[in-house]
């Protein structure tokens, strides 16, 4: 890394970012088998400064992924296992009376920090806690601060929440409302491993414990990369394209595809469009580019928008998935103007 007294140029920072992304993937890959796209998406969330909701069946390595990432980044890791009886104070922490050595009260209260004070927080099975408890986490996610006994406590940056959801066991769960889901930058669907990946998983996990992954980025470097991500340039046509994409997810939009009008009740909002551009910037950053491409927006559109769409009754009855609808939108909305696109394609 370049010494702090000699700040690298932007060009150099971009190169470093690409290199760091590569190194991170490699380090995580030493522990996690496969799931390259999931790793990438988690990194997009980290770089863009957002939070990630991981959805997948139990045992797919979600927790391991988060833990490994925390180890690679030299960040404080905490885990909260959400259960129905979990209280908000269990997450945020509470003030406790300080006792002396004799066991007598000193008359002073001391903050006993909860797991939310970590830097990479794994909120496991977030949908199992009550909405009240969920809202305590979500407030911290939005504000990057918690208020305990009237005292506002700012969380240490980078504050990165990764929540997991089990889509199978829905009994006794409290599904997150759309307004709260909107606070997650990405919703990453963790797929089941392929047969080859599974074989490799078996080989790694049934022998001796795997060595800890190397530390790739320091706390300061992560913060620097996050700042760099915001500097990535986005041309006006790309911004317009992102806006068109988000606009076409609304059933009221005049040019919305038929699948959207039929299958959705509400589309993505402003926060969705912002997330789209931020995530696209992260993609560009991790690839060492100074500008966002149309393809970046297309690549991030599914994880960014899939949890921001509210299906209609018809959509649910027909079994239309949000990914299916978003694919239709991507196909429906051209990135370039029609005449230019025709000329490009005519070659």
């Amino acid at each position: 890394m370049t010494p702090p007294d000699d700040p690298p140029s932007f060009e150099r920072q971009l190169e470093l970012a690409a290199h760091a992304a590569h190194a991170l993937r490699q380090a995580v890959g030493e522990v996690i088998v496969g799931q390259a796209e999931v790793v990438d998406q988690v990194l997009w969330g980290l770089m863009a400064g957002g939070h990630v909701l991981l959805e997948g069946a139990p045992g797919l390595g979600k927790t391991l992924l988060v833990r490994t990432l925390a180890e690679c980044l030299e960040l404080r890791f905490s885990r909260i296992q959400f259960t129905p009886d979990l209280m908000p104070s269990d997450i945020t922490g509470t003030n406790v009376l300080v006792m002396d050595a004799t066991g007598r009260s000193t008359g002073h209260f001391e903050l006993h920090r909860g797991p939310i004070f970590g830097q990479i927080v794994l909120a496991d099975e977030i949908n199992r806690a009550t909405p009240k408890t969920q809202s305590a986490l979500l407030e911290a996610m939005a504000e990057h601060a918690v208020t305990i006994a009237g005292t506002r406590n700012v969380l240490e940056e980078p504050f990165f929440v990764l929540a997991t959801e089990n889509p199978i066991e829905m009994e006794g769960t409290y599904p997150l409302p759309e307004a709260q889901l909107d606070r997650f930058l990405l919703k990453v669907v963790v797929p089941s491993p392929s047969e080859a990946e599974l074989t490799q998983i078996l080989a790694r996990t049934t022998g001796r414990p795997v060595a800890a992954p190397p530390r790739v980025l320091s706390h300061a470097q992560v913060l620097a990369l996050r700042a760099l991500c915001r500097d990535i340039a986005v041309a006006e046509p790309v911004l317009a394209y992102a806006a068109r994409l988000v606009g076409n997810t609304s059933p009221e939009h005049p040019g919305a595809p038929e699948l959207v009008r039929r299958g959705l009740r509400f589309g993505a909002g402003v926060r969705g469009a912002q997330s789209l551009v931020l995530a696209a910037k992260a993609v560009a950053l991790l690839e060492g580019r100074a500008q966002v491409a149309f393809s970046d927006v297309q690549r991030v559109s599914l994880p960014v928008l899939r949890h921001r769409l509210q299906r209609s009754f018809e959509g649910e009855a027909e079994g239309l998935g949000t990914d299916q609808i978003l694919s239709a939108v991507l196909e429906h909305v051209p990135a370039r103007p029609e005449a230019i696109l025709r000329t490009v394609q005519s070659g």
Partner: protein
Amino acid sequence: MTELAPSSSFREAFRRWARRVRARVLLRAALGGAAAGAGVGALAAGALWWAHEQALIPWTSLLTGVGALGGLAWAQRRRWSDLDLALYLDGRLESRELVATAVAGAGEDEVRAVVLQRAAELLHREDPRRARPRVVSRWHAALWLGLAASAGLVLAPPAPRPAAPEVAPGAERVQLGQVEGLDRIEALARLPTSDRAQAKRLAELADRAQRLREQLRQGMEKREALAQLAKLRDDVSAEQLALGDRANRAGTDAAAEALSRHTGTQRAAKALGDGDLIEFDREMQRLANQAEQSARQAAKEALEQAERAAKARGAEALSQELGEQRRLFAEREQQAEALRELAEALRSQGGLRPEQEELLREFGEQGSPETQRQLTESLGDALLELSEAERRQLLENLRRRAAQTEGNAPAPGTRRQLEDLARQLATEPGREALREQLRQLAQPPASEGAEREGALGEAERGGAEAQRQLGMPLPSEGPSTPGAGQPGASPGKGGAAPKAGAQGDPNGGKGQPGGPGGGGEHGAHEGTTERVTGEELRAKASARPLPGLPFQGAGVGRAPARPGETANQVGVEALGSLGAAELGGVEGSELPQEYREQVGRYFQP
């Protein structure tokens, strides 16, 4: 060499790339416009070729140029902006919107500098051919095809001319200097008439015929000429049947009924009832020629009764006709008597030849005008062959018979005739006068009505002849009766042929024997024709058309029947719309007598 700043380096490179791309886009638009113009020009050339305006086809190539200019103008109007062009370049160079971001100038200064530098490097590094827009497309083939089509149409033979519109049947013009038959209609103006109204009608018919002749001389539409001729014929036919009109019908029926009371005048009654004045005149002539005094007297009385009956029913014209017949009857009677006296005188002098005896006997029994003519000619020849002594002897005989008849109170006319005969035989001029008188005896006087009837018949046939000259379709001849002559309904007299007179084909062939029509041609008499029985006959539909003559007017539809009307009239009342010769056609066909009578009774009012 001074190194350009990234921004200026990028701008220069981008301008160069943009110029190339824009030029090719313009060229493509011009080609597209030219192709469209050539296509339109080919269509226009096709239209001009079809319109036989091949001289104008080369000018359609101008449309190609106009299309090219239009394409250029359209492309210039929709010229890509720098950002559009950058997007195009990014698309073709797969540069992840690097050029577009550089052109848009997005990002902070430091970032923009990096973007510009990378974009400039890209543009310098890449081969411009990668981003060349395609100029020629498959659609541009229309340019060459259109031009080739136009050129081909210039060299192609002219389009076939559309066929001239067909002239409507009968719309052709005919011009005839001489029209046969119309003179017979024009002659109607000179006919003796029974009343002023008829004279006016006949004069009008003659006038129309004259006008038609004039029109045909100057030229007119064939169908118009045929229509006028048909109308003329119909009107002539209606005039022929004037006795059956509203004014005369009751009187005609009453007169016929009066005649039919006497046995000897029943045929005359039939002829009168049919409105056939020619036949009626012949029958009266026959009755007047009869040798038996009582028969003649009975005929005269019947004629007188018929005249009174007609007058009583208000049939003034018929009454006049019957009065003239009565006058003629007396005159004919005297002529017949004189002929018989001459024959008797010759017989008493030396006897008559057997054929003369036969003619005399037939003349006395039947009194037909034909027999009268033959007898007169035969006696005239005998008179001229007499020697001087024989002539004196004949004169003596005549005087003696004149003396003998004085006691028997012969008719005054007869005595005077015999004296005249005796006197004329004495001298040569007298004999010449006698020959003339004999010729007149052979042609007994006809009534005005019969003469008019005959002339009307001639006029009607004249109209048919004119129609034939104009090329009116003729009825097809039956396979079994080529040139067949229809039998005459009754013996003819003079020029007045029967209605269904014998008009034979001179080429002969199997034909039905012609009737005893004296005035018409007899036609070929060979061959036989199947008999037509009454059961098989269905009105006119089964009647044979007259060969060589056009169709008569045919009735269409059905005439409404009303009580008291008769069906054996044409041109009036309910049957007014029927053709004038409809009933005549049935009457003139080979109908068994029984059937005719049955039909007559059926339609008797």
